[in-house]
């Protein structure tokens, strides 16, 4: 089931996500920079709604490669199954290049119903965020529609840091990001660019 932004005669895939979760993803990417950051936003099966942010450990701890830690992934997957959730968003960051899926990203894209969110932290004061569907090796960019609120029906986003550093606080540093640049889709764009106040 896809969340669709309906234009006359055309159905377009779109990622609808709360500002709070976007902020949390960006904060995670900034924390791990210059290593690539990666994670999931889970949501109820079939809802296409990202509600629960799960930052994951990058077992590769690399500036140019990421992979989920195998055992953490199993645990998170079992937890999603128990909660009747699926990965709605799978995100990772590029720390020196653009927020576009690489050939490796495309080769590994194994969750066809997920929105693949790319975050680029190559600029210190602008974070580039773009979303893509990757199905059977085909990449299709989609607009990111940021909504107010905390992203879950109960109104509260869950933030569970999975990184190995227990001293990392899951908070957003207001100085870390001054503006967001969202992917442009000529068909339908509905996003907000924020600058630091």
């Amino acid at each position: 089931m896809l969340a669709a932004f309906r234009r006359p005669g055309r159905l377009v895939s779109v990622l609808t996500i709360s500002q709070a979760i976007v902020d949390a993803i960006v904060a995670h990417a900034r924390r791990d920079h210059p290593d690539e950051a990666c994670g999931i936003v889970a949501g109820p099966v079939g809802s296409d709604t990202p509600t629960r942010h799960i930052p994951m450990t990058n077992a590769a701890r690399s500036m140019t490669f990421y992979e989920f830690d195998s055992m953490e992934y199993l645990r998170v997957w079992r937890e999603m199954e128990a909660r009747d959730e699926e990965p709605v968003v799978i995100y990772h960051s590029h720390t020196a290049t653009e927020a576009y899926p690489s050939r490796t990203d495309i080769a590994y894209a194994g969750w066809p119903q997920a929105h693949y969110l790319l975050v680029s932290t190559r600029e210190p004061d602008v974070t580039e965020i773009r979303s893509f569907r990757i199905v059977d090796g085909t990449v299709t960019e989609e607009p990111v529609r940021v909504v107010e609120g905390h992203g879950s029906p109960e109104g509260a986003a869950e933030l569970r840091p999975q990184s190995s550093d227990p001293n990392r606080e899951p908070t957003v540093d207001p100085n870390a990001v001054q503006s967001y640049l969202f992917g442009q889709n000529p068909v339908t764009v509905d996003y907000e660019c924020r600058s630091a106040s």
Partner: protein
Amino acid sequence: MAIEVRIPTILRSYTGGAKAVEGSGETLRELIENLDATYPGLRDRLITAEGGLHRFVNVYVNDEDVRFLGALDAKVSDGDSVTILPAVAGGAPVAAGAPVARFVTA
């Protein structure tokens, strides 16, 4: 002998949509061959032409990643639960002078 195998979404087209199937075998390799007999095409998504475990999947027997149990030679027994998940990984294009990306091998 029944071993439950959890199938990820991307492979359910081979199992008629089933999220979990049952198979038999003494090793993971035998189990996959056994499943392929009932669900043709499944093996080629899990085992490469060279006969190794595909790097695009994570396979677990109960609570352990099979890469630590001998990969396709991992022992399986009646009552075990095998989970297959698509590997989640990737990398940025390598810029000139940047460290070479590390690739996962089976």
